[in-house]
């Protein structure tokens, strides 16, 4: 019996028959990877249909971490949602803060002082570096190198988290940005220690690359695996390193020039083949570009206020209207869409999570690959379940 006959009643969505024909006589095997699987980055299930080792169909199952973020935000005041945005993508709480602050600032037409803009850029780029480093570490760990690259990544991550902690009071859940500025000012001592950390980062990336980039096992496992064609990536509105690894030049820092990104010189690394190796390479190069931005931003941070004096803190009631603010988060385009009806709470609060939308092409990348490569491809998408399920 072929698989096309077994599932004919509901052909819509994920129940459609597989586009691939099974080889040989053997039966197809359906396995559920997850929700408790060491490689699923949390709680996520993939129902994989296998013909031997080949993946015939892959059905992602979400919702194991659905925490009602949007619903809670619609019942809360605007500022009260800021701590919840930390918990969306819990690796990059500061980028999430920025995206949300940007959306609200667009909604009310709020300007942000110069110094706060610089602080935001510095924090967002530090976030990007630690996210990429640990995501590569996890990717390599899933390949079987248990520990070493992840240890290196987390060693560097701890240094960056120390900076976050001394500035915001929390290692991971920073809750730092405010509408029209930032919560606390950076001190000269913090800037000095940030410079020290940034000065050490190129050596870390060099070390990381010496360990991995030309590693034979890594090349054998990654090259040509999980190829994503650029036209499919664009059609599926994939963003972030995943899209750039397929060779599409789209970086919101360059496209929107939000904040003050137009003042810094940096390049957008692009991949050639769109395979797992390119995604790894794009992330490494992005770390280098982030270090370049930090090296430009840290010395020229101006003095001045960190909050716009006109910013309204109490009785915050935006005029009716809607706004969409987006930034280039480490995982892709993170956007917040807000509709205000003039009340203290948003009427509609919608998150455009890069992780969820990047996951939609998972099946297309996995078809025909070995089941061991599914783990790898999934890791290379770099998702965080807090953001997928919200």
């Amino acid at each position, binding site marked *: 019996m072929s698989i096309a006959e077994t599932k004919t009643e509901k052909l819509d969505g994920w129940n459609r028959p597989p586009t691939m024909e099974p080889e040989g006589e053997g039966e197809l095997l359906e396995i559920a990877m997850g*929700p*408790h*699987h*060491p490689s699923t980055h*949390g*709680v996520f299930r993939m129902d994989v249909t296998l013909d031997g080792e080949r993946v015939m169909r892959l059905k992602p199952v979400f*919702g*194991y*971490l*659905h*925490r*009602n*973020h949007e*619903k*809670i935000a619609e*019942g809360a005041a605007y500022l009260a949602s800021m*701590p*919840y945005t930390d*918990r969306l993508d*819990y*690796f990059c709480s500061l980028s999430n803060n920025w995206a949300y602050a940007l959306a609200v600032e667009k909604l009310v037409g709020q300007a942000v002082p110069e110094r706060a803009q610089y602080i935001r850029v510095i924090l967002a780029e530090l976030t990007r570096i630690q996210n990429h480093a640990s995501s590569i570490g996890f990717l390599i760990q899933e390949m079987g190198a248990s520990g070493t690259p*992840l*240890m290196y990544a*987390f*060693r560097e*991550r*701890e240094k960056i988290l120390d900076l976050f902690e001394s500035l915001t009071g929390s*290692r*991971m*859940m920073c809750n730092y940005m405010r509408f029209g500025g930032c919560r606390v000012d950076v001190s000269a001592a913090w800037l000095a220690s940030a410079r020290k950390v940034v000065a050490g980062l190129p050596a870390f990336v060099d070390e990381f690359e010496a360990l991995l980039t030309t590693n034979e096992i890594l090349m054998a496992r990654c090259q040509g695996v999980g190829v994503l064609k650029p036209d499919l990536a664009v059609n599926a509105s994939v963003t972030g390193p995943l899209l750039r690894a397929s060779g599409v030049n789209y970086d919101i820092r360059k496209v929107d020039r939000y904040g003050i990104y137009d003042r810094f010189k940096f390049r957008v690394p692009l991949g050639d083949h769109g395979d797992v190796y390119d995604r790894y390479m794009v992330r490494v190069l992005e770390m280098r570009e982030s270090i370049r931005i930090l090296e430009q931003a840290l010395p020229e941070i101006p003095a001045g206020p960190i909050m716009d004096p006109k910013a309204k803190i109490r009785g915050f009631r935006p005029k009716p209207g809607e706004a969409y603010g987006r930034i280039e988060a480490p995982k892709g385009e993170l956007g917040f869409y807000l509709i205000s009806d003039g009340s203290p709470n948003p009427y509609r609060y919608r998150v455009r999570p890069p992780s969820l939308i990047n996951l939609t092409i998972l099946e297309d990348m996995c078809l025909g690959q070995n089941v061991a490569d599914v783990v790898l491809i999934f890791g290379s998408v770099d998702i965080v*379940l*807090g953001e997928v399920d919200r």
Partner: protein
Amino acid sequence: MAIEENLKIELGKQGVFVTTLEELYNWGRRSSIWPMQFGLACCAIEMIATTMARYDLARFGAEVFRPSPRQADLMIVSGTVTKKMAPQVVRLYNQMAEPRYVIAMGACAISGGPFKQGYNVLKGIDRYIPVDVHIPGCPPRPEALIQAFMTLQKKIDEQPLTGENRPRFLNQNAQGEFPVPEPADHDLEPPSNPGVWSAPVVIR
């Protein structure tokens, strides 16, 4: 029965090591707690950070994270347990072999935390499975997780092997399998396990 401390020290000076079976047994158990590699949400990242270079959980004999519940002694419920995930968490706990322990890591695992008002969030994993150590925090720092480990080790040290207070795995009549909740129309069914959890009494 514990040995008198002075006598023990005196004997130790003579090169004689005296202990009780209970102490030796508990020492062995507490020095090799293998946690399950099981991350739920944000706290899982701090759990991973605890095992990494700076905090190094290996100092406590607990660096071997096992992917399979059959090989694990300790379940760290690290993060928000949603109503979709709660049956799986209880099932994983049932699959673990005795002796088994649970650390509820973070505000969400204890009580639902910041997401408590959500319609899909379980208000504390201790409604279904017995929790040995709670650590508050959102997320708790790695130091807090290490503190939880030390608390658990202390707890294991003090467990008598016989008598009324003996641990569950030495008690024939103790509950071994915990009922797995099923999703129903509005909530999980049953909403809690009365053998493990009872609603707190409010004293006004």
